[in-house]
């Protein structure tokens, strides 16, 4: 009996120590940009849009697991492997694309942060640079463990979306059935929006981040199984949060036929139906989603830089030692903040550009994941299963469609 408890206690402790990369990466996929997409989708299609959530969850779980497995087995990041096996030219091209797409996402997240600040009557011109500078200093001066705890605090704030959903008094029965039973026909516009949501959830930076972050945590091969569970759990949590966000918007704005342009709009617009407190909750959620998003995405660029070019880069290292790593982080955050604060910058256009590059680069990343995860020299006996390969190939097709549809949608004006 004692032994039984002892064993479970031990397992639980290991599991707790390993928790982090899967949940953080997956939840960060619901960044400020993501919340905007979900709000727009839910206000346009209501519960009908829920049907795509389970496929997204599977897609996210499978692709993230492959990236994390490569990092644990090969003890190398995706960028490390690309540079070592495909040479410097391809490495530079990939890095430039990743830098651009990540920059666009950082801009969107800082813009979300800015909108949330305005929502609470705080002057963004004053507070935004302060917050970003504070965040940067925090990341520089603390180690991996502390930064990870901070990420978890940010993740906890996503609970506000759950609360908003309850305040919206939705039809829970309909919401849940919509997850599995298609409601209504599929129009081109529905398809377009659905695929945009796939694009904000399964991202280029997500693939690089999970991999670098797992590597930085130094998870060992014996804990591969726990890590896999954690990643699946992360996908589940993320999609659950998406579900509640969508419920909050669908039950209010869709029901009353109110169109919105972004997440801050949504926060304001739900007040008449769910109360002022719901607006506050939604706004707080957006604020923390912006913080989590901009740090995680800018960190991805920094990790990728140090892997592609071989410089020291770890949250556990000092600024002196990982100078270029932290400088990359600073550059992304600074440019992101400046662009987001420029008057007259079209966030809509930046979103389009980001989605387009994302669609361009993701199939390439999946190709690399496929190559590395099936290479016995890299993975030993931990190569991909057939199912995982099919999922990867399927995702690549979906993502290519997404970026093509994005372009076509832009031209046709869906």
């Amino acid at each position, binding site marked *: 009996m004692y032994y039984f408890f002892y064993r479970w206690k031990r397992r639980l402790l290991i599991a707790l120590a390993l928790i982090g990369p899967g949940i953080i990466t997956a939840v960060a996929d619901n960044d400020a940009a993501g919340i905007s997409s979900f709000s727009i989708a839910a206000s346009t299609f209501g519960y009908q849009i829920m049907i795509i959530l389970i496929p997204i969850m599977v897609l996210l779980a499978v692709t993230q697991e492959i990236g994390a497995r490569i990092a644990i087995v090969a003890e190398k990041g995706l960028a*490390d492997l690309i*540079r*070592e096996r495909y*040479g*410097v*030219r391809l*490495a*530079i091209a990939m890095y430039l694309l990743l830098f651009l797409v990540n920059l666009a996402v950082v801009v969107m997240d800082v813009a979300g942060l800015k909108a949330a600040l305005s929502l609470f009557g705080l002057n963004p011109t004053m507070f935004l640079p302060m917050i970003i500078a504070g965040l940067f200093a925090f990341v520089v001066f603390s180690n991996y463990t502390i930064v990870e705890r901070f990420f978890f605090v940010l993740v906890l704030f996503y609970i506000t979306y759950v609360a908003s959903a309850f305040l919206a008094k939705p039809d829970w029965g309909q919401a849940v059935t919509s997850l599995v039973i298609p409601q209504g026909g599929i129009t081109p516009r529905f398809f377009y929006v659905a695929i945009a949501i796939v694009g904000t959830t399964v991202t280029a930076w997500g693939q690089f981040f999970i991999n670098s972050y797992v590597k930085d945590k130094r998870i060992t091969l014996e804990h591969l199984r726990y890590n896999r569970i954690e990643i699946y759990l992360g996908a589940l949590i993320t999609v659950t949060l998406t579900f509640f966000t969508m419920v909050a918007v669908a039950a209010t704005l869709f029901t009353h036929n109110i169109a919105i342009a972004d997440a801050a709009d949504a926060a304001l617009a739900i007040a008449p139906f769910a109360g002022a407190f719901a607006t506050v909750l939604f706004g707080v959620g957006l604020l923390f989603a912006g913080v989590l998003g901009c740090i995680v995405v800018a960190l991805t660029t920094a990790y990728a830089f*140090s892997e*592609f*070019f*071989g*410089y*020291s*880069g770890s949250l556990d290292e000092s600024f002196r*030692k990982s100078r270029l790593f932290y400088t990359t982080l600073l550059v992304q955050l600074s440019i992101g903040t400046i662009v987001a604060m420029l008057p007259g910058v079209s966030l809509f256009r930046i979103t389009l550009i980001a989605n387009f590059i994302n669609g361009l680069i993701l199939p390439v990343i999946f190709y690399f994941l496929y190559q590395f995860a099936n290479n016995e020299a890299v993975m030993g006996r931990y190569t991909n299963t057939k199912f995982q390969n099919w999922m990867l190939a399927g995702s690549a097709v979906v993502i290519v469609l997404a970026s093509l549809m994005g372009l076509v949608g832009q031209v046709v004006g869906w």
Partner: protein
Amino acid sequence: MLYFAELSGKRVVSADGSTIGRLTDFAFLATDQPLVTKLRVDTKVGHILVPVSSVAAIKDVVTLTSGYETVGISENELSVRIHLLDQQIIDIKGNKVVRVNDVVIQDKPYLVIAGVDVGILGIARWLKLEQWLNRQISRFGTSLRSDFLPWENIQPLELSRGKVKLKREEAKLTKLAPEDLADHLERLSVKNIGKILDLLPNEYEADVVQNLHVSRQRAFLRSIKPEHAAAILSKIDPDEAVDILLTLSEHRRALITPHITPEAKNQIDYLLSLATTDIGNLITTDFFTATPNETAQKVRHRIKTETTLDKPLTYVYVINEKKELIGVCNLHELLLTEGDAPIYKFMIQNVVAVYLTTPPEIALKKMVKYKIYSLPVINEKKQILGVVTIDDVVEEYQRIAN
């Protein structure tokens, strides 16, 4: 000095000029002296490995000898592309330092990996942007230098385990400027030359010594047994042999000469007997020097403004900060080279030079043999003292003959 980025993809032709394929990789020995042993050539029907002994020349194209061999890979051989290029360099404590951006290969006296380029120019070279980048940077009045890690910093044993590991901590690394790299390696190889000669086929022995810089030849011959020195001297060109002998003390010379093979000894004795006058009174101190990082454009400009026609100028001598002679470049090359190329990239590194002890006859023979119009005269520290020109030497020769 050759860069892998510039060699990779070069056309490989046979002795009659027909294309065989493209150069894609080198095999090298994972030792303290990383000799390049084989070239990988990708042909239309797969790839072949060619031993370096079958390579006639590496210029714009790689020319193989007629009847070149193809071989397989052997144990203890690693690939530049797989084991070195793009790999992560870690220091002795396991810290990440940087990646290998390019691999630097020394071609004289034998093909050997000199070190790795870890600087931004190493990356620019792959993108064919090196010249452009240099040009842009020079607009701001400064210049980019490559960062080299000489081979001696790398643990060869770790390479076969897939790691480019350094022998020391990152903070204690010595990075060298490219122009000093060859010199640095030569200094090392004097120490290790015994090992190299063991690795190389015997007929290369003389070649290796002959191609060492003069000051190194002397150091080397003093470091080995007289019998061994004599064996090497017997194989090399008698003019060279005499020149090297004359730099040694009489005592040392007396120890070596009895062991020289009879055929070589006759010629060497004859040449030594000529060595009655030295070259000192033929020296002129009018010569033109440049520093390794000066661009062709700048050197051309300096020649225009700083020299006059009454003092003839045929070569530009390149000297480093320690005033050591590290290279030479003739005017034709200087004219043909792109303006923004630094001189160290196109200078000839193994300079034919003479000592104050060198007899004018031997200087003349060297001039004729290498088709050189003036020779630098250097001291033991490799510093240039002056030059002797062909007209002065010929005059002296005629004077003696009369």
